[in-house]
């Protein structure tokens, strides 16, 4: 789950990271009032889950409250990478002497959180990594011990020669690490970390991505989810414990397991079709999930055929069969349905389906080819 800049900054502030004052506005009037309150130049920054806000014109410097009003008017309602800007962050504009990058990600290979720091901040760290990799220092953290002061100081000295700045940066890195761990992040970054002309070290932008698996035990973090900034069908799916990603094709797919779901999409394409979505009903199944999956898929008017591909392990195929029966009884389908189903409790499932007038195959290639053909209006 992505957090907005203002949310990430609120968390970081709670861990002691120095951040310029700022508040959220949803109207130009509010933005103007905040600029007046701060009595200094401000930045007005679009709060959307998209990178490249600056390039898209979503981040503006405002000298006066009137200026803030004007810029907020322009930014609010703007579209950035398909997302509508509903909120702006109005924040005191910091004097910027230098810009550094500080980030933490969970690294698969090292099996640890890894710091990435670079004195070349303010821009895409991916670009720095690609063009001048020597400007990035990577530092894995052993979570059994946490980030020690000496490690933070090594990172601080990588950014700054001056010991005062290095110490300030080291402290911020320890605070960032604490926030990262406490919030259940998979990524947390400060970009840019700024040194002002007076020698203050400040976090001018902040980003956090939360591991979705943490949300159940971190209700305060979970409450930060902003559903207004996401695809409604994906929100609906998530709220029903389904993993759903909308795509542009016409073959609706309901699969259990991410690997098989991807392989199913691949096979749809292999046989000349286009998947309409990725949908994983997950491991432990219950009929309700199937009902919700069908509701979400059929809401997409592009869908011309629906393909179930279920290989029962922990998922019981009889649960899936029951779900199909229940869902189609309540809301009869308007598009053809192809069912492929095998594995745990397959016999029971087949019986349920047959008794309710459905046919099902146990062969994946056969089912996919059939669904692709049906979507094309064939058969």
């Amino acid at each position, binding site marked *: 789950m992505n957090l907005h800049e203002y949310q990430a900054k609120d968390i970081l502030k709670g861990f002691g990271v120095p951040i310029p004052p700022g508040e959220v506005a949803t109207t130009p009037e509010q933005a103007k009032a905040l600029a007046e309150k701060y009595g200094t130049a401000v930045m007005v920054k679009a709060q959307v889950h998209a990178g490249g806000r600056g390039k898209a014109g979503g981040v503006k410097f405002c000298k006066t409250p009137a200026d803030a009003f004007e810029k907020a008017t322009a930014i609010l309602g703007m579209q950035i990478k398909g997302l509508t800007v509903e909120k702006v962050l109005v924040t005191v504009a910091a004097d910027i002497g230098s810009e550094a990058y500080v980030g933490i990600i*969970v690294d*698969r*290979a090292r*099996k*640890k*959180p890894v710091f990435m720091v670079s004195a070349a901040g303010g821009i895409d760290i*991916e670009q720095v*990594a690609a063009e001048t990799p020597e400007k990035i220092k990577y530092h894995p953290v*052993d*979570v*059994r011990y946490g980030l020690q002061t000496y490690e933070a100081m090594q990172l601080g000295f990588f950014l700054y020669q001056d010991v005062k700045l290095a110490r300030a940066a080291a402290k911020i890195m320890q605070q960032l690490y604490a926030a990262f*761990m406490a919030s*259940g*992040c*998979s990524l947390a970054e400060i970009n840019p970390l700024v040194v002002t002309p007076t020698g203050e070290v400040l976090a001018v932008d902040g980003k956090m991505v939360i*591991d979705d*698996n*943490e949300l*159940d*035990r971190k209700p305060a973090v979970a409450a930060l989810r902003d559903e207004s900034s996401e695809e409604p069908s994906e929100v609906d799916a998530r709220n029903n414990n389904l*993993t759903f*990603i909308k*795509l542009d094709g016409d073959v609706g797919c309901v*699969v*259990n*397991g*991410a*690997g*098989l*779901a*991807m*392989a199913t*999409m*691949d*096979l*749809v*394409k*292999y046989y000349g079709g286009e*998947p309409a979505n*990725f949908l*994983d009903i*997950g*491991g*432990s199944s219950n009929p309700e999930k199937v009902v919700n999956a069908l509701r979400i898929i059929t809401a997409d008017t592009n869908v011309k055929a629906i393909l179930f591909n*279920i*290989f*029962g*392990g*922990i*998922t*019981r195929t009889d649960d899936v069969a029951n779900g199909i029966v229940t869902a189609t009884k309540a809301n009869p389908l308007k598009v053809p349905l192809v069912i492929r189903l*095998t*594995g*745990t409790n397959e016999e029971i499932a087949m019986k349920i389906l047959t008794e309710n007038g459905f046919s099902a195959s146990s062969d*994946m*290639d056969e089912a996919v080819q059939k669904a692709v053909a049906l979507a094309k209006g064939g058969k």
Partner: protein
Amino acid sequence: MSVFINKDTKLVVQGITGRDGSFHTKQMMEYGTQVVAGVTPGKGGQTFESTVPIYNTVADAVSATGANTAVIYVPPPFAADAIMEAADSGVQLVVCITEGVPVLDMTKVYPFVKERGIRLIGPNCPGLISPGESKVGIIPGRICTPGPVGVVSRSGTLTYEIVYQLTRAGIGQTSCVGIGGDPINGTNFIDCLAAFEADPHTKAVAMMGEIGGTDEQEAADFVKHHMTKPVVGFIAGQTAPPGRRMGHAGAIISGSAGTAAEKIEAFEAAGMGVAKRPLDFVELIKARLK
């Protein structure tokens, strides 16, 4: 005849009285796995299905029954603790089926398990099966049959799919290992490839990867330099749009190091067979067993 588990595997089931735990314990028992104990705190002294003694702690279960392997079916918030409990109990192999374990929990669990020299498989995995000998986890037993192919996969149901197709084509397996799709797991492709290379009964290996990460590339490198046995690989997610997370934490393309194209290229560079779709495994493996 197999890797990691065999006829001598004596299993303790953590979460034996839960919905999933009890269902799959019955399946494992039916398959012939020696399920020697179960654990559910507070149900110590009871029995499961009138035969399997239940204990309050894994330590109690192991000291009473000599279990050497633990399998975990507990909800995600308790999974990390369950893995550590198992790793501390004296068993040598811990298989964690639970899906949805926070990755930061695993940053702590991983060194804990490694320090004890224990093998962890998973989390978020279907477990493993050595056909005809033992099954630990949730892989449906009837889709497998004994034979010469080692199977290793990051995916659950995709593994079943491919094993099922191999079995239907008359190609049996020494062991099938689902290593799980989470960013941090206990056993990786290379661990399994090395085990299959060392297992005298394995003649070829089928390996199913996914987009995201670089495990498949490293595995390909291992195949190139350390494997004498033929390996056939597959990558799921060839058509996945970049930057979107496809369910598995693993199935996200980060940077440029995890696309299907790169991984397939690595397979080819290692001289591996490459399956374009699951069904292709049948012919590719068949050709390599001759």
